[in-house]
Each structure stands twice: as structure tokens, then as C-alpha cells.
């Protein structure tokens, strides 16, 4: 295993009945502080990848190695240890905390399950809440008495209770307004540095990725469309799908606004994967080859991989004719 690698996913496949939701995904997460953004639309399989990594859905194939251990074969005590090391933070802040349980009890429960003496729990809960930028007095509140942003930070405090080394953040801010989102992202960014955490950030919104992630992987219908260092991938995408995702991010200042690439037809479903490149029915740069040949994920520039027949042209500045800016 390469030095610095915490989690290595190779050729991961996940099936839901006859549908292959994740089809040959490989990802590398380094030891923290580090962030990998996994970006795609609804139905791209990004949440399924996160859940498979945490052993919450079974993998149909491939390998997942975490600090030298084969995650897919872990059982018993070792699986429990892995689940402490790798924690999930959910999108749905309204339902990820029990409405009948005070916030402090929700966090304290995790501590006692993992063996902490009851006398020490209260202080530890207060410390965890402070770490997540919450007033420790909120421990006595019920979830509905907190704002959405506070609830999400309480969920993060709960995830931190078992001292994880990897946080899987599944759309952690998409239920929040932009001001609450900014505060939650700032909290995660600080925790990442203070605790040396690795983060897998799952999102449909490319704009929140640079705040947390050095590396980005773009997922389309269960396969990686493009991957590379976040800054270079955003500055010059190699895949037309990344171009479209980038152009969809709303921009405050007109001067920085890019020509919008509207993808026709809406997101596709893995159950009806088109022939050739899965993206070709929506791709503004489609050529004949794309309808027939499946593009392999290949190196297209130092540190950059893309699964597109025209990746070099896109990297060199090829844009859809209706959208030349950007």
C-alpha cells in the first residue's frame, strides 16, 4: 500500500437487484487532514459509494482497503472498530437525531455504548458540543428546539464522539440555507485540521468542494467521469459533464458568470444505461464514436484522469458552440 493512503477503493461494484448502481469505481483517500469530493447528480450512485465504504450496503465486487485491512471481510470486533474509525454524517438533519431524545443524551448514548463511564460522559458531551461550535447548554435541548444548522453540528459532534479518522459527509449542507451552510463547512474545515480528519464529501454542488477537498471525483451513472486535484479540475475540466456541473453553479457577480450548459433530458437512471458513453445522450460535445465505444478512465494530464473520448480537446478549451465562455 502506498504511503499516506488511508482508504483505497478498487473497482467497486454495487448492485440493487438487476441494476448496477456503482460500476467499477476506484478512489483513494489519504491520511488526514485530507478531503475527497465525490460529486454527481441524484442517481449517480454517490451516496451508494459512501454507504458501501461504510459497509451499510453490500458490495457486489471490488476491494476496499482501510489502513491495510480488507473492509469487505471485516467481522465482529474488527468491524466494530472500523465503524468507530469511519463515521457517517447524514444530509437529513431533521431525521438523523431522535426527536424524543435530548441532544446531550443522543451524544452520551454513543459514548456509553463504546464503554465510557457514566460519570465522565457529561463533560465529554460538553466538550464535543464546543468542538462543533455549539453552546454546551444545548445538550438539554430537544432536536426541534435547534435550528437546522445547529442540528447538523450536533450530528457532527455525535459522529466525533467515537474519535473517527474518516468522516463520510453525505450532502451535509444541502438542507441548510447558505449562511448556515457556510458555518457548518467552516466547522468541518476546522475539525479537519485540528483532528487530522479525512473527509469524503458527497455532494451535487461543486461549489462547496474547494472548501474541504484537495481531490475531486465526478461520478456519472455509477462510473467515474473525471478525477483530479480540485483546483485544476475546476479550473480546466477534462469531461463535458464536469463543464456542465461547473456551469450550473449560480454565481453572484455577472463578470464571473459562465455560459450555462443546460443538460437536456434530466438525469438518467442506471437501469437504462445507454450504449457507448453513458453521458452521450446529454452531452453537448457528442461525436459518433461516443454512441458506440465506452470511454475508459485514463490519464489525460499529470494527476488527472477522465473517461471521455474528447478529454484532450476539452482540456485544451473545447466548449459547446452555444457556450464559449468559461
Amino acid at each position, binding site marked *: 500500500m502506498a504511503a499516506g493512503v488511508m482508504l483505497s477503493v478498487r473497482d467497486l461494484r454495487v448492485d440493487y437487484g438487476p441494476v448496477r448502481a456503482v460500476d467499477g469505481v476506484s478512489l483513494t483517500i489519504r491520511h488526514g487532514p485530507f478531503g475527497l469530493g465525490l460529486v454527481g447528480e441524484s442517481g449517480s450512485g454517490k451516496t451508494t459509494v459512501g454507504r458501501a465504504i461504510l459497509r451499510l450496503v453490500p458490495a457486489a465486487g471490488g476491494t476496499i482497503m482501510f489502513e491495510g485491512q480488507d473492509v469487505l471481510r471485516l467481522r465482529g470486533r474488527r468491524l466494530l472498530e472500523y465503524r468507530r474509525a469511519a463515521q457517517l454524517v447524514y444530509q437529513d438533519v431533521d431525521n438523523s437525531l431522535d426527536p424524543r431524545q435530548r441532544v446531550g443524551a443522543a451524544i452520551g448514548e454513543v459514548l456509553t455504548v463504546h464503554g465510557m463511564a457514566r460519570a465522565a460522559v457529561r463533560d465529554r458531551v460538553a466538550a464535543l458540543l464546543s468542538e462543533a461550535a455549539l453552546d454546551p447548554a444545548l445538550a438539554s435541548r430537544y432536536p426541534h428546539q435547534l435550528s437546522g444548522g445547529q442540528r447538523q453540528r450536533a450530528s457532527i459532534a455525535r459522529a466525533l464522539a467515537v474519535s473517527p479518522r474518516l468522516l463520510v459527509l453525505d450532502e451535509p449542507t444541502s438542507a441548510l440555507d447558505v449562511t448556515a451552510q457556510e458555518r457548518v463547512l467552516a466547522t468541518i474545515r476546522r475539525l479537519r485540521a485540528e483532528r487530522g480528519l479525512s473527509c469524503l464529501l458527497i455532494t451535487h454542488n*461543486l461549489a462547496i468542494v474547494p472548501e474541504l477537498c484537495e481531490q475531486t471525483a465526478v461520478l456519472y451513472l455509477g462510473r467515474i467521469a473525471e478525477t483530479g486535484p480540485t483546483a485544476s479540475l475546476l479550473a480546466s475540466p477534462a469531461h463535458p459533464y464536469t463543464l456542465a456541473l461547473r456551469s450550473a453553479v449560480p454565481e453572484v457577480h455577472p463578470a464571473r458568470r459562465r455560459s450555462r450548459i443546460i443538460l437536456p433530458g434530466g438525469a438518467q437512471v442506471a437501469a437504462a444505461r445507454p450504449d457507448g458513453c453513458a453521458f452521450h445522450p446529454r452531452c453537448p460535445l457528442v461525436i459518433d464514436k461516443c454512441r458506440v465505444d465506452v470511454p475508459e478512465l485514463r490519464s489525460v494530464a499529470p494527476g488527472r484522469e477522465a473517461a471521455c473520448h474528447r478529454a484532450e480537446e476539452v482540456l485544451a478549451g473545447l466548449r459547446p458552440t452555444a457556450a464559449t465562455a468559461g
Partner: protein
Amino acid sequence: MKLQIRDLRVLFGDHVAASVAALDVGVGEIVGLAGESGSGKSMTIQAVLGLAGTAGATVTGSIKLDGTELTGMSPAALRAVRGRRIAAIFQSPASAFNPVFRVGVIVTRALRLHGLSAAEARDRAAAAMRSVLLPPELLSRYPAQLSGGQLQRVAIALAIALRAEVLLADEPTSALDVTVQAEVLELLRELRDTRGMAILFVSHDLAVIAELCDRVAIMRSGQVIEQGRTQEVIAAPQQDYTRELLAAVPRLDG
């Protein structure tokens, strides 16, 4: 002015949930109402729809549609306006559609309530679906069989089919993917430009407002604190809070 709001106050007891001194939406114009959760944006929309009262609030002030006062109108008269002349779309399209009925049944029922015959309702629903770029066949599906973006377009199609003059849009893209959001925003621009619809668009995201809205009002703690042409407000915000909202918008260059 198509929609004219003056000295509007929405009160829960002594608590002022929304206070709008003056807000106008003209024909072929999109006006944004921006602010955080709890700032009073949605209560303003509810008041225009005449629904704030049913939530237990007291509404004072004036809301006029083409010069006709809506506050204090009888429930029957208001029903003829609401839905027909003033349509609304919401954040969660899934909860705007009754899950046990086919989408087409919901749409044609709304059209028939506003006086269309069954045949007219069917034709108009199909035409409206085409104008939001959806195949009319989707009308035979159940809401759970459509994606969030498709359902939001159906909600917009209903407004089109009703020939609504005013569209109230309460965070209509906040639950959608950014790519789908871009499509819905494009559709709203088209409603403004080709149908002259007057749109009041509520959002917490100033970037979305900046892309879409001709004018914007910023709300905080129930009050409109700043208002003007969108580009001017963004280029030179007068209030610290507006600057905070602008700073919170995530940017691709980090």
C-alpha cells in the same frame, strides 16, 4: 403594477413575523425576496396567498392585484383569484402533489375547479406539459414516479395551464440538484419573457437571486432591510447583513 404590497404586517400575537413597507412586482418582472430561514420570506408569500390567516396570523396592510385589494376579500372571492390568477410553487414539489392520485388527475382537477370542461382541461394540461419540456405522457404517472425536477416543472405547468398572471415561488429550487436548478431557473426566465408573468421568487441563496431576479428585497427578522435593482444591491450593498449573505455564497474558486 401587477402585484402591489403596502404596509403589510403579518403578526402572531405581538410577534411581527413579516413587515413589508412596499414591494411591487410588475408584468414581466422577477422580484427576489432574500434572507435566512425565519426571516419572514415565506410568511410574506403566505399572506399574499391569503393563507397566513389559516396559520393563525393577523394580516394588516394592503395587497393589490391589478389595483384590486385582496386583503379582506371574502373566502369565495379569494379562491377564484388564488390558483387561477396567482399561482404558487413550493420547495418540496413532492408534498405539493397528493401521492395517491396520478399527476394528470391533480392537474385537470385544478383546471376544472377554475371552470374548464374536462376536454379543455385535458388539452390545456397536455399543452402546458409541452411548454415546460415534459412529455404529456407523464401525466399518467404517480408523483412518486417522477423526479423532484420533473414534479417542479409539473407544478409550473399547472400555473401556465391556469394562465396565472402572478407566480409566487417559495424556494422552488432549494431541494434540487444544481443542474436541475439551472433548468428550472431557465424555465422561470422564459415565463417572464414570453408570458409576461410577474414572479415573486423567495430564496436564501443570493447567487440564485442574482442570476434570476430583476430586483431584490433583503429580509431579516421579519423586516425588509434593503431593496433595489439586483445588480446594484450586489455591487454596492448598503447593509452589513446583505454583505454577510453575499459572503456566504460558496464559490468555485474557493
